[in-house]
């Protein structure tokens, strides 16, 4: 991301907008600048702010007078008055920041926008997590903190030691050079992103062990970690396996995504293959 300094009037509206707090006004040049190391290329400033196309010279003059008179500005707080933000073309490894941080950019590896995959949202069609199994989405960096791949690797390495199964369609799994060790490509380790989700699966007996590992590793990595934990319900729609186990562990859970089981295979090719198998 770039701020065009010919346009910027250092109004500061963009400063609170940045989820990473990467923008500040450099008083030496009286322009807003981006801390490139902190910026995760999420595009919030460029895409999320509304814009005007006012004349920068005129606006700077008005601001100077108003500042001299100690007037308080009351502009719309989400507007860049001179459309000063510009998106530059990114190359690897920096491009990986945008891929993991900008929700409207689609992951080529999954065909899904965002950082995860279909998880159990399509479990009624894919049965990714079956009875007796537990799926985990281990999310790093959100809300509002960000994470470096080196920290994610700390976790994937430990999880690999635990013998978990990494979800093959997950973007982080695609970045692993070895799913047995949890090692990620070395050229991206120092890159910072807004967030990423590691998806794994275990048997239900391993829940305690995995959650303990996640908590332990989180103590040593400088970010926040949020865990989603999923299971298949029984034929009556009840979860009598995972929920009691979580309660025994004293885990706090009040919110959930619930799949109502309304999906089915309708693609013609797959449907006919299924019918052939039945015959």
């Amino acid at each position, binding site marked *: 991301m770039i701020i065009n300094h010919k346009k910027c009037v250092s109004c500061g509206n963009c400063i609170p907008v940045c989820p990473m707090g990467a923008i500040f006004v450099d008083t030496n040049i009286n322009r807003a600048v981006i801390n490139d190391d902190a910026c995760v290329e999420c595009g919030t400033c460029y895409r999320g702010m*509304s814009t005007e196309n006012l004349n920068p010279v005129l606006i700077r003059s008005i601001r100077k007078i108003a500042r001299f008179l100690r007037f308080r500005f009351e502009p719309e707080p989400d507007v860049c008055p001179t459309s000063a933000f510009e998106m530059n073309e990114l190359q690897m490894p920096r491009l990986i920041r945008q891929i993991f941080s900008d929700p409207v950019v689609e992951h080529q590896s999954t065909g899904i926008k965002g950082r995860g995959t279909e998880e159990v949202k399509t479990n009624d069609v894919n049965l990714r997590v079956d009875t007796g199994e537990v799926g985990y989405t281990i999310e790093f960096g959100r809300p509002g903190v960000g994470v470096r791949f080196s920290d994610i690797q700390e976790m994937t390495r430990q999880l690999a030691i635990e013998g978990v199964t990494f979800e093959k369609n997950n973007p982080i799994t695609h970045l692993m050079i070895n799913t047995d060790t949890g090692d990620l490509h070395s050229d991206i380790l120092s890159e910072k992103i807004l967030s990423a989700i590691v998806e794994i699966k275990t048997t239900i007996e391993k829940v305690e062990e995995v959650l303990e590992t996640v908590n332990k590793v989180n103590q040593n990595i400088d970010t926040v970690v*949020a865990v989603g934990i999923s299971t298949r319900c029984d034929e009556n729609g009840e979860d009598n396996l995972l929920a009691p186990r979580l309660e025994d562990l004293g885990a*706090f859970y009040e*919110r959930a995504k619930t799949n109502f*089981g*309304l999906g089915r295979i309708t693609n013609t090719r797959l449907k006919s293959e299924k019918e052939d198998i039945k015959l």
Partner: protein
Amino acid sequence: MTNTLHRYGKADSFKDDYIIFAIPSKGKNDEDCIPKLKDFLKICARHNPVNMGNGQRGTLTPDKDLGPSSHWNRSGQPDFEAVIDGVDKPGTVSAVFGDASSATECLQEIIEADFGISVNISTSVENAKEAAHKCSISRHSVEYALAVNDPHDHLPNSQILSLSTMCGHGMVSFNLARKMLDMVREGRRTPEQAVATLTRFCPCGVYNPARAKRLLMEACKEQK
């Protein structure tokens, strides 16, 4: 896409927060699914949603060519039609509801429409059970949100977190949520104006303006 799992709050804080979304599965039921996704949204639009999204946009979006007078008369009206018309490829579509009865009635109509696409709800565990019970369906799978681990004290207070985490992709920054809260407290913006500003930053359309307004008004009464 609709990363709505880790919204901050206790169960009763989700009394006005129901997100129903449809997600086609790649290679399984994504063939010719666009008309179905549009029909899904059309059903949702009939049941008083407070926001809707198609993965590309929500009902309130940033304005890219504002005139100077917009500072005095800016529109905060949601555009549901634009979200429906904007569905042009397979992906998650969603609608946010601010009350249980609208969400349940909508779900009932979606069940009857029988799109064959996975339908999920994101809300409290109890709200989801209740909705399933009222619509006489069983839950297939469930993903629980466990608490966020923050051993290094990165996170702000609960008021800011509640407002910020309603954009699951993190596009509503802590600082913007704080600024809006302060502007409402100082009487420099109405809660409606502040909520419209926050909602515009969520590109997926899953931000809940009804809940945000309630949270802002509650937060104004209690300083933290």
